[in-house]
């Protein structure tokens, strides 16, 4: 059979048009020009097709051929993904670097995960078994942290008619032969392919009522994210989006992390590559890299592949979810992805909607965030995909289209504040404008797994912070000294919350990650400070005495001075606080 071939008739950056394309299909992957660049058909009209090209088009000529590949942009899914770093269309950057050293050249072709490497395959089915879609037929130890469960791909069912013996196989070797009800024979391998732009099917969605524990106080305590939920981190440049994403990639209790560097800095990916293999996961004692996948399509790499990188990442996430894992995906930055959409649609001379973005921006955002969820998979395992997307609003102004539309589709919103970042209050998440829609669903989990009054303490603290905000308006006009003591106490305790609790130092070994139990005890201490302080104020004790420097500074430094594994020390400090106020009250009684 001859491969359908068209002819290039128009070239404008990453967008080309070709004629004689009637045998091609929408969204088909093609090779472009004599350099065989990789492209994807994004519209078909009669004989002519528009193609977005995933590589630099410099040097391509009119009249060069466009050849069909017969399939849509597909992601090869199998062992070999975890621990790897790929470009936006799942080409391993290490392999690219072997072919073209140092700098990425075009025309490298479609390469993917290693198909030659041999894995120890353990098969769990025998001849005669009936296998349904999504069912597990074997295992491979992909990394010491991740067992790759070999699954029957979606839409395939049948009876096992042949199984190879356990042993070493590469991901292309047929391991199991199935005979379907229609008599067709299907080979099952350790790998499968899936079109990136189509969500992998599930059995059903389940409630999102378990948190993803991140060890970041402002998130876990104030604006938690559910496993299977979605969150956005908008913020101007330098406000801490990437730091937050890195912190979440390091410390959140997901089984697998998919980190997409979408149109951001090369050095940030290098940093992950250098740090993660050295960082040891406290739970498993293994390097974090063994549960991490990196998709790196940096700002200077081709913009069409940047557009694809989001889909590549989410497809990989869904694949591991289907095995029954909890996967968290960080996309830094979804704004660069939206800009890639804009750049491509702009070259098509489509009528733009707001700020040059295409009219389909909201629907693309919605489709992406909808791929998150806590689900029962095909084959009835429980798994989840949580999405955390950074948003980089132009001018730091949250009223621009990408931020506004993202806000409509995410459950948690962690707004970064330039003023906080300028004063180096990190993480610079604004506690007044941020929110989490998951608090209600997660309350029960916190009651059972942390403490019954955790949510109450959270509410108390937020209330104080809201009041403090109002008081600050007055302070700005008249200074602090003229406020009555009960209000000054609110200011003092709020400072404890802000400096002692909300500020969290990512570079400090105790403070970088804080277990929930410690977060709870810290709240307990601050709450005690407020309650005892209030009673003291009522007794007429002056604020200057209540605000004892030694005690206050001890409370602020709890985060550094009480190690995560010495929570017993909290009893001493609570005792000290109570004794102090007991003494005060006795004096003034």
């Amino acid at each position, binding site marked *: 059979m001859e491969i359908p071939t068209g002819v290039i008739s128009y070239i404008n950056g990453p967008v080309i048009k070709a004629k004689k394309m009637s045998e091609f299909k929408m969204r088909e992957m093609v090779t472009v020009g004599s350099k065989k660049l990789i492209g994807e058909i994004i519209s078909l009209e009669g004989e002519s097709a528009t193609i977005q090209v995933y590589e630099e088009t*410099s040097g391509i000529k009119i009249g060069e051929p466009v050849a069909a590949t017969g399939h849509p942009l597909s992601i090869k899914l199998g062992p070999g993904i975890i621990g790897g770093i790929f470009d936006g269309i799942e080409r391993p950057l290490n392999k690219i670097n072997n072919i073209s050293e140092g700098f990425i050249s075009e025309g490298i072709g479609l390469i993917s995960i290693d198909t030659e490497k041999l894995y120890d395959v353990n098969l769990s089915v025998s001849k005669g078994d009936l296998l349904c879609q999504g069912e597990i037929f074997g295992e491979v130890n992909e990394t010491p942290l991740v067992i790759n469960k070999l699954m029957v791909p979606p839409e395939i069912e049948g009876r096992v008619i042949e199984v190879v013996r356990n042993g070493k196989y590469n991901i292309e070797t047929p391991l199991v032969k199935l005979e379907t009800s229609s008599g067709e024979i299907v080979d099952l391998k350790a790998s499968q392919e899936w079109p990136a732009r189509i969500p992998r099917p599930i059995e059903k969605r389940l409630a999102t009522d378990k948190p993803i524990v991140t060890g970041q106080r402002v998130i876990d305590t104030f604006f938690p994210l559910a496993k299977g939920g979605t969150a956005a981190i908008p913020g101007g440049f330098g406000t801490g989006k990437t730091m937050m994403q890195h912190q979440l990639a390091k410390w959140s209790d997901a089984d697998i992390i998919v980190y997409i560097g979408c149109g951001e800095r090369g050095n940030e990916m290098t940093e992950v590559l250098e740090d993660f293999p050295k960082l040891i996961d406290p739970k498993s004692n293994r390097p974090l890299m063994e549960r991490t996948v990196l998709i790196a399509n940096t700002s*200077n790499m081709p913009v069409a592949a940047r557009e694809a990188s989001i889909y590549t990442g989410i497809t990989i996430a869904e694949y591991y979810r289907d095995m029954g894992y909890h996967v968290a995906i960080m996309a830094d930055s979804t704004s660069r992805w939206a800009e890639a959409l*804009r750049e491509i649609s702009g070259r098509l001379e489509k009528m733009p909607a707001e700020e040059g973005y295409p009219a389909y921006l909201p629907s693309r955002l919605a489709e992406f965030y909808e791929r998150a969820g806590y689900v029962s998979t095909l084959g009835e395992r429980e798994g989840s995909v949580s999405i955390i997307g950074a948003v980089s609003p132009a001018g730091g102004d949250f009223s621009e289209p990408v931020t506004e539309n993202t806000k409509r589709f995410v459950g948690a919103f962690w707004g970064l504040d330039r003023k906080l970042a300028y004063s180096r209050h990190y993480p610079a998440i604004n506690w007044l404008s941020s929110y989490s829609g998951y608090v209600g669903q997660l309350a029960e989990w916190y009651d059972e797994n942390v403490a019954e009054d955790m949510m109450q303490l959270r509410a108390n603290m937020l209330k104080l912070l809201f009041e403090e905000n109002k008081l600050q308006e007055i302070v700005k006009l008249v200074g602090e000294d003229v406020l009555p003591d009960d209000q000054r106490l609110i200011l003092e305790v709020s400072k404890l919350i802000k400096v002692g609790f909300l500020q969290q130092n990512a570079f400090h070994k105790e403070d970088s990650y804080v277990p929930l139990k410690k977060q709870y005890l810290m709240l307990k201490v601050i709450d005690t400070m407020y309650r005892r302080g209030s009673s003291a104020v009522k007794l007429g004790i002056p604020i200057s005495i209540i605000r004892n420097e030694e005690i206050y500074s001890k409370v602020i430094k709890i985060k550094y001075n009480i190690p995560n594994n010495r929570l017993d020390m909290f009893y001493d400090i609570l005792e000290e606080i109570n004794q102090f106020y007991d003494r005060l009250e006795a004096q003034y009684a």
Partner: protein
Amino acid sequence: MKSEYLLLDKVEGPLIALSGVADVAYDEMVEINIGGKKRKGKVIQLYEDKAIVQVFENTTGISIHNASISFTGKPLMIPLSREILGRVFNGTGDPIDDAGDIFAEKTYDVNGRPINPVARLYPRNFIQTGISSIDCLTTLIRGQKLPIFSGSGMPHNELAAQIVRQARLSEDSNEEFAIVFAAMGVKHDDADFFIKNFERSGVLGKVVMYLNLADAPIVERIITPRCALTAAEYLAFELEMQVLVIMTDMTSYCEALREISSSREEVPSRKGYPGYLYSDLASLYERAGMMKGKNGSITQIPILTMPNDDITHPVPDLTGYITEGQIVLKRDLFQKDIYPPVDILSSLSRLMKDGIGEGYTREDHAELSNQIFSAYSHVQDVLALSQVIGEDELSEADKKYMEFGRQFEESFIKQGFDENRSIAETLDLGWKLLSILPKDELNRVSPEILDKYYKG
């Protein structure tokens, strides 16, 4: 040479359109010959037998039948060898200093190629600039891209020149350094200022210059930084030198891009700038860094002027989203006669976290800088309050903050154009000033460090 085309369809702004072409490649270089004078351009769009060419020099004097166009079959390449050191080129890479052509050791495509993230080496080495506000609070790291955000009339050139003069780029005498200077749309005076300063620091023989001055064709500006960075890549990754690239003024560069975009009638995004401004700027800024297995490095200090001192303007905004921090100059300080008028709060060095502290600068550096940021940011609140209620009405602690703020600006931020402070001097000065504040206000510092360095 391939076939020549003598008839144009259209000349409009910096663009010419012609038809009947064959075998032309996207992005290839074009030579336009008008009565024996040559201009350069490149193919920016192809449609069947029609090509649109962007002319680097201006199109003045070109008519639809007085020019002959020939396609060179390759992208813009520049010749490179060690000889480029000490030479001056125009914005498209032709020598303009009467010292003749460059004998090419290598020729590179000026567009470069993206560095593979796996081939990068994460930059960690501190560069001492001798400027306190930078060394202590916005530390420059070898291989970093750290722009200066300035406004018209502010001393960004002086600051850049001082950095060039004082920065110790190479750590030992075995390492070679070089400076690549790209001027885009700057005045002759400004260019002369830099040249004089290079001379004065005795580095002129180590400088490569690409000059597209204010009266040079605007479109040429698109190529200027690309030539400069191509030369930098050659020096850093081929000759393994420590290269510092100064690019000024990025705002003029972006305006040139906007002009071309509007003459192509592209869909604009903010303030008329094209939607691909981010990607375009990234294709320049991302050419900074270090690579595995190479001893050289490219450190970039782009300079840009913020229209109306507005940091949310697309040029500073998109730059800040790409670079690894920014040094922001503030008009307030400038008017108070503080040089360099660095606004430390909005300035940032993202790479400093891994390049300071024990083994790099000093153990107390990180905590000290955190504390200064936090204290100085409180000074701004106190200042605002004092304007409402008067300084006398401030609390005792806040009065101390006012005092700290004043002295900090006067003696820490402010320094002489020739004053070169060592990192130890800078850090000690920082502690001296923090010691104006009561010890218990310094809650960003650990007790051990505080006991050791606090002098109050």
